[in-house]
């Protein structure tokens, strides 16, 4: 008589059910952790984009300033550098409307050379950018990264009375990070006062 040996391999149904239950609990608890890390990664990636944007624009402006031996005054874009009076702007979020455009002319020490910075906010079209028209009339547009709706909320330019250094400040804001987030800050000596500065 042949006795068939029972196959003792495999899992019982209850073992399979318990395993599935345990694995589901682990996956659900990991889900939140992974989600948090993903949000963090998105945020850091966005901050990197804004920093890169700011650095590229800063470099472009500084390179043009240095190539033209420095800034002697900042004026309205429509004025002539030979006759304009150095402008002081000190606006803030309360002065700026949702849609605006500020144009600023940088008058250079090199004769008949200037550049223009155009700061543009348009909430209706979700357009936020800076145009920089350099001393050779090349125009370059620097659009803000669109995630988190960063926009410009402050513009200031003035000559510091004590030191005669010219400052240009463009503030960035997003509702997610508070009333201020980051800013472009250009500091340059007034080369009308310091002829050998640059």
């Amino acid at each position, binding site marked *: 008589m042949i006795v068939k040996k029972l196959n003792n391999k495999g899992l019982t149904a209850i073992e399979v059910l318990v395993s599935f239950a345990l694995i589901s609990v682990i996956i659900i608890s990991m889900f939140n952790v992974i989600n948090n890390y993903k949000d963090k990664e998105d945020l850091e990636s966005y901050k990197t984009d804004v920093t890169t944007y700011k650095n590229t624009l800063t*470099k472009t402006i500084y390179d043009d300033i240095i190539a033209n031996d420095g800034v002697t005054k900042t004026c309205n874009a429509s004025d002539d550098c030979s006759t304009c009076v150095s402008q002081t702007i000190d606006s803030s979020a309360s002065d700026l409307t949702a849609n605006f455009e500020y144009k600023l002319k940088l008058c250079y020490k090199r004769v008949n050379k200037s550049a223009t910075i155009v700061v543009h906010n348009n909430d209706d079209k979700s357009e936020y950018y800076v145009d920089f028209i350099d001393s050779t009339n090349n125009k370059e547009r620097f659009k803000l990264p669109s995630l988190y709706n960063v926009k410009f909320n402050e513009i200031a330019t003035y000559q510091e009375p004590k*030191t005669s250094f010219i400052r240009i400040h463009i503030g*960035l804001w997003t509702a997610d990070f*508070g009333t*201020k*987030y980051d*800013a472009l800050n250009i*500091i340059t000596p007034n080369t009308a006062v310091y002829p050998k*500065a640059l």
Partner: protein
Amino acid sequence: MLKLNKKGFALIETLVVTVFVATIFSMMYTNFFPMMGEYERRETYDDIDTIYKTYLIKRMLEDSNFSEFKKNISNLKTSSPYYKEIFSAQYDPVYNKGEINMKSQDIINSCNKLTTISESRTYCQNLFTEIKATKIYLASYNITNLKKEIKKGSTVISGIDNETREYINTLPYYINEDICNYRIIVKYAKELNKESDLAGTVINSFTTIGVKL
């Protein structure tokens, strides 16, 4: 007769594997977290604003009016301590958030050592008031010897603080001296999150540039 069940792990096997896995994870942990700190610290090295401010310092120092500090610097290349502190100023520890104020007397004293010409001193004082530099070290363009002294922890470089030494350790050796013969290493006071609602803590940022003297 009862058959022994040979499935499963012995207790000792389980313990050995647990200890092994725990050791691997703790090694990964101790290596990973310092990297995060290193990354955050390196954010303060050579950022765009300080690079251009350092360029302004370079142009000033290369000017012929600034001759006082250039006396007796040729030995920086060959003799210990391989560096010279040419500027030092502190900031006022009590300040309004968003604006660090430098101590004007420190700036005046340092600028007087850089140049004897009155107009140049005025520019020097105005520049450092604006850019918030706290230390400038002058060294040979090739900083191999300086880095060696720092690695040795030698007492001759006691004038350089630890944070600056860490920055210098990250720099390459700069062997090619075709264009510049010296190098300045500049330390700045920078406000953390200056533009945000969290403005407060002052941190140090560093940058370096070659100069031709």
